[in-house]
């Protein structure tokens, strides 16, 4: 179709052109065989499309009219009403079935026996033999054996110990035939992590102070008294935290505490007037194991995690 009038021909046969435009096109058609052919083809298409006969039967038409007139105008259309109800029913059924399945799954997956759960929560020691014991027997000997007698001086270390076990998340209920501590609880509570961070900070300060003890001066041994006292306080806390870290499966914290523990014990067990060699040996061990840096890194990491 190279002629510019081809689109106008379509409008011409539809009577959509103005009188002047129609005259122009008619005049053009007298001279353009292509557009004349196009008009003939368009008109033939019109005949074919317009002569299409529907297969509608009069009985069907009358039946449709009767059906329409019999429907109350205020009532919703039958087809739409049925479609809506079907969809709503299907949706409601789906919701109910989903809720039932969810309930069943929740009941099967959740912990069932509250008494056993209470045992798991209150058990401070992850060792299998201690976890099997009842709460009254596990709580008191551990605390009486490991913890020092509460004094006015170590309030800050004893206070968090009391609150930590009560706020620990519930432990998984052991299945029949399975020991409780076989799979350690992987999540540690925020309290124990806070205590660990504080403990690392205190231990770091202690080791730094111990490192700075002046050995060349004649009265050096008397300056170790403060470090001994702090080390004694921290040893017990270190034991508790190491056990908790072991129970939680936190290998990194547990190993760090394990390395720290003998150093704290050695400092705590220094004689009242230690010689310079004993102090130097402990210092060398601290430096060799790079404990101070590890304490600082872990303390900062825990603090960031808690923030």
């Amino acid at each position, binding site marked *: *179709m190279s002629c510019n009038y*081809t*689109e106008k021909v*379509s*409008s011409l046969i*539809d009577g*959509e052109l103005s009188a002047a435009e129609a005259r122009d096109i008619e005049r053009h058609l007298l001279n353009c*065989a292509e557009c004349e*052919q*196009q008009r*003939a*083809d*368009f*008109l*033939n*298409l*019109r*005949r*074919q*499309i*317009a*002569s*299409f*006969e*529907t*297969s*509608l*039967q009069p009985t*069907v*038409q009358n039946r*449709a*009219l009767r*059906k*329409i*007139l019999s*429907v109350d*105008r*205020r*009532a*919703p*259309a*039958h*087809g739409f009403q049925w479609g809506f109800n079907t969809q709503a029913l299907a949706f409601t059924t789906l919701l109910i079935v989903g809720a039932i399945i969810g309930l069943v799954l929740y009941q099967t997956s959740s912990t069932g026996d509250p008494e056993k759960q209470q045992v798991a929560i209150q058990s401070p020691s992850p060792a299998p033999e201690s976890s099997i014991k009842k709460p009254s027997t596990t709580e008191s000997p551990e605390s009486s054996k490991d913890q020092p007698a509460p004094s006015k001086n170590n309030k800050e270390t004893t206070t968090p110990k009391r609150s930590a076990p009560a706020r620990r998340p519930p432990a998984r209920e052991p299945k029949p035939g399975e020991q409780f501590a076989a799979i350690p609880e992987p999540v540690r509570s925020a309290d124990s992590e806070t205590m660990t961070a504080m403990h690392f900070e205190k231990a770091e300060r202690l080791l730094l102070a111990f490192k700075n003890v002046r050995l060349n001066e004649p009265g050096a041994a008397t300056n170790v008294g403060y470090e001994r006292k702090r080390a004694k306080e921290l040893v017990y806390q270190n034991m508790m935290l190491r056990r908790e870290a072991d129970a939680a499966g936190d290998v990194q914290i547990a190993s760090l505490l394990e390395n720290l523990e003998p150093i704290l014990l050695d400092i705590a067990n220094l004689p009242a007037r230690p010689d310079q060699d004993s102090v130097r040996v402990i210092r060398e061990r601290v430096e060799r194991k790079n404990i101070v840096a590890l304490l600082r890194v872990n303390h900062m990491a825990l603090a960031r995690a808690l923030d």
Partner: protein
Amino acid sequence: MASEDEEFTMLFQDFYPSLCRFLECLLGGRAPLAQDLAQESFLQLHRTAWGNLPAGEARFWLYRVARNMAINEFRKSNTRYRLFDRVVETMRPRSRNPEQEYEAQERQSLVLKMLQTLPEDQRAALLLREQEQLTYREIGQVLNVSESKVKVDIFRARASLRERWGKQEQKFRVQPSGCSSSRQAKA
């Protein structure tokens, strides 16, 4: 109320067959579905819009609703009605002799096949023009598009059909009296 029903009946008798034909061509020959949709359109008109529409608007409203329903049907399964349509077509009473009936069926089938090659908006515009003799403005009103788009759509539909017509009519061995004979004469 009685006069309203009488008016509605007159409208129904006037436009129900043409609405069925429009839908049948739009849907590609699914006559029972076209009749169902036409009935549903009239039902909606009777239930909701009848009496609220201005005079002369009911026809355009009907075609607009019917076309929307047809578009919804395009999105549904295309195979649901085919078997039923064939059964209905087979059982349809024949008024002409077999040869005439065969020729008419072939021509109808060819028209439907040709129309199905067009995009839906072009097909609807062309059908409203050729079968219902609506103006471009009225077609734009029904299809909710501008007059200029209607003009372009109709022209493109015609040009597309004209191009395909020769090949298809040879394929189906139908001899329409129009373009093919004139083209052959020209050649």
